[in-house]
């Protein structure tokens, strides 16, 4: 078995030298990492935070503030938790692979050079 | 409201485990 990885999108990115310098990539993706389990409901509830997007149920779970000068980040989870973290440059960039099970194809859609990471214990929101 | 949006913190971080990948793993 074998499958080619479609790389035209990231190849164009790399050759254009349009690299990620912010928390979001030029393609609009972001990597969020938390040292812990992020618990989110599996089903929708009658609450403002629940809505849908393109036919898929979604929930608003937090608010993120990033200071690119100091590379610090604050993440508010729900109504009760506050996490302090940072914007970190990855030692090795990560390619984002999308596996399409119907067509049996693989595409490398983006490259992450940074992530926002929260390693500290959550604090209460005062 | 019977739901929770919450981070359950973990004291440490581990990433030492590595394994080879089978074709089935790749597509799982």
């Amino acid at each position, binding site marked *: 078995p074998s499958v080619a990885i479609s790389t035209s999108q990231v190849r164009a990115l*790399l050759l254009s030298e349009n690299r990620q310098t912010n928390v979001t990539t030029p393609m609009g993706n972001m*990597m969020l990492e938390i040292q812990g389990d992020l618990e989110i409901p599996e089903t929708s509830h009658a609450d403002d935070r629940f809505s849908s*997007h393109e036919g898929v149920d979604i929930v608003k*779970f937090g608010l993120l503030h990033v200071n690119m000068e100091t590379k610090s980040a604050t993440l508010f989870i729900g109504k009760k938790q506050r996490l302090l973290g940072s914007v970190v440059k990855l030692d090795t*960039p990560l390619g984002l*692979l999308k596996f399409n099970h119907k067509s049996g194809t693989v595409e490398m859609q983006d490259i992450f050079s940074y992530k926002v990471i929260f390693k500290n214990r959550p604090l209460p929101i005062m | 409201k019977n739901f929770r949006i919450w981070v359950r913190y973990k004291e440490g971080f581990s990433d030492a485990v590595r394994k080879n*990948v*089978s074709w089935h793993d790749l597509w*799982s």
Partner: protein
Amino acid sequence: STNLYSRLSCDPSYKLVQLTPELLEALTSDEPQLQFKCFDEKRSDVVLCSARRTWLLRQKNHSNTVMLMREFLPEDEQTQEDSSLFGIPRPINDLLGYSRTTYEYETRATEGRINLDLVPIYNGEVNFPGESKLKGRTLKDVFDNSPSSETECKVRWYQLGGCVVNGCPCILSPDMLSNALHVTLMSALAESLDFDRLHPCETYEVVQKDVEKGRSPYVLEVVRTVLAKFGTPNDDETWKLNRRQVAQWYGVRALQKFASRHSVPLEEFLIKWKSTFPPFAGFDIDIKMLRGWFCEPTRGTVQYVSKDTLPVDVKDRFKMLFKLQSQWDLEAFAPFIEDLNTKGLKIDTFIMKYARKRRIGKKIVVCSR
């Protein structure tokens, strides 16, 4: 600030792979694309291949939550009260988490391997390939089905004695290869061809002069395989014969012929080895070339050790080797066990896990524990 949303059920079809400098180089090169390949679906390991290189894929699990998010426009825009902003600036954009991952793929450089399933052996048969299951398939098909880059496939193919006879990819049998090599050398010597610049077509022509009229098994492709297996390419489609490799081949065949059933005095073996070459061939020989193929059961004698008889289990292999020969020079011992050193340790570190090392004068010898 940014509003963060998440899908209630995340999309599991996204994965992350570490992009090492080699992979980034492969991504930006003009060569064909990267591929995931595997020997078979059930048991074997997936590799990542560029046109020239192969990497083993390794899954590195971790214990954190990693969420992949992208910018999006919520369908129902909600204004946020200041009290729910916790003192930070108002949100100006929105991100939607669409996938979570608990591992990354790492890549480790490895050797590509050729999938020889269904590739028949060619021993000079008249009606080759007959009803071979590989009939109708090309060499490109064999390479496509192999967990290896194309460049490595091409090199490895000839190292294995790979050939294409009557349109069918095949492996030349050891006898066929030996005979083809011998005939090629004899013919090239007779016509005073330059061993440093052998062209396949010219070499084939001189071989045809020397074989009996009628059907010769030494077709152009066979001659090409001989040159590619026993030579290194020059810039101009010619091959430079690797004399050491040729001498080694003759040496192993001589060990199989003269020193299989019982050991033979070294001096006698060297004479016999030399006699197997074409006359006036002028190949230098040295018993050290054959390390990994013989043992010295008693001082000054040699005996062939077939790789097929070596146990796969490391302890059993060490035991067998010390039974054949109680004490080995480190350099003579290493070729017999290096394939078992899968973790890539320094060879003497690996050997010391299962044997003892002693210094005798300037030499290091290995013996059982």
